[in-house]
């Protein structure tokens, strides 16, 4: 395959970064529970 041009809009996060974040809720609707660290 030739070298087509790709655009990286977001490289994503490694598991280490998720592990170091104080987050406790998932994507999607939910009630007024404590938020991730603002």
């Amino acid at each position, binding site marked *: *395959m030739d070298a087509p041009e790709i655009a990286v809009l977001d490289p994503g996060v490694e598991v280490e970064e998720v*592990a170091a974040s104080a*987050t*406790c809720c*998932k*994507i999607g*609707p939910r*009630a007024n529970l404590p938020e991730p660290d603002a």
Partner: protein
Amino acid sequence: MPLSPYLVAFPHPDGSDRTAVFGTRKGSLCLVPTSAYEALRRGEDPGPLGPALEPLGVLVPDPEAERARVLGYLEELNRLSPLVMLAVILGMDCNFACPYCYEGDRKGPWTLEPDTARALAAFAGARLGPGKTRLRAQFYGGETLLYRVRLRQVAGSLQGVAAERGASWSFGVVTNGSLLTPEVVDELRPLGLTSAQVTLDGPPETHDGSRPYRDGRPSFGRIVENLVAVRGRLKLGLGGNYTRDTWRAFPRLFDHLEAAGLGPADFTQVRFDAAILGVGGEAVAGCAAATEPWVAEAALALRGEILRRGYPTPRPGPSTCMIDRTDAVTVDWDGRLYKCPGLVGRPGFAVGDLWSGLRDHRESHGVEAWRHDPACRACAYLPLCFGGCRFARLEREGTLAGVDCHQPFLDATLVPLLGQDLRYRDASPEDAGVRRPG
């Protein structure tokens, strides 16, 4: 090199000959010429695309090894996490009377007592050590800032124990905002305060009905005054709880914020979530709202408006909940421990207390349920979900066992949501979003 089994791909909404590819394990997003993506789907050698797409988790050396990596993701995350996370209820009194409050009739004059605060510091200190080098707490209530004296004491003791153990320390407050003045912030910052999460349920005409003071007075004006006064002193997160009847009014909130002089730079995160009223006004978990058909429409429309106005909001990506994390726990005012704020005060769901420690909750809370569900194991959304919200499962099914499947909700919302990111990120080189984790 083959494609990962954890991908969501769709044509770029701008009609160009590009395919947007979202990798769910990393939350990566890229654009690939559609012809090249089709060639990858046919299994052709990626050639020079390999070094570009492998770091994004789009191409993987071995799909089965990638599946094994995702199945072991939470174990790896817990092994790597430097955090000890506490969500602490300082007391159950509140100066607001929000009809949807999930704490309901558990409100009252109960406070975390000094001996409980000492036990909390000992509990936290015992969990710090090699590999656990960051202590983070979120305080809530009731209304957190009704408990300023106790908050100073608890934060001070946790700050002390973190210092003794060579760990860093910080905390945030979840507050209704009515008492969040510059004096309060300046008093708490030396004790480790870094952030506040404040709730506005839309513009005054909706907010003041859903978040009034206990005596019925409106609260919108005071909260916005306080936000103006404290901005720049700490990180501000803005949340809002909408219903089927109020969500369409929410965009007007931004007009009111801007009229007060507040803008995107004043907030580190803005997100709105569904609050659903059950029979008799009793609160029902918002997570359960994923099954309500209007919620997908509202969630997408309001996220789009947040981005259009230039405010930061979370992007989809791998996320975990307190139940999944080994060193995350909710501490009730009486010292009992729970693995989710939604479970606090529910008989049978405590997992120990500050004095006797944390019991193994893996079986009782369905931690491994997704691992045993063939549909979950085969699902491309698994890293976004990991079995969903156990609290929502409990609300709907009466049990924490089993999974709270988000597939229908993600089928309906993920591609449009990623399309929003494409649109607004294309529109501005300055990234308007915040990553999850934030």
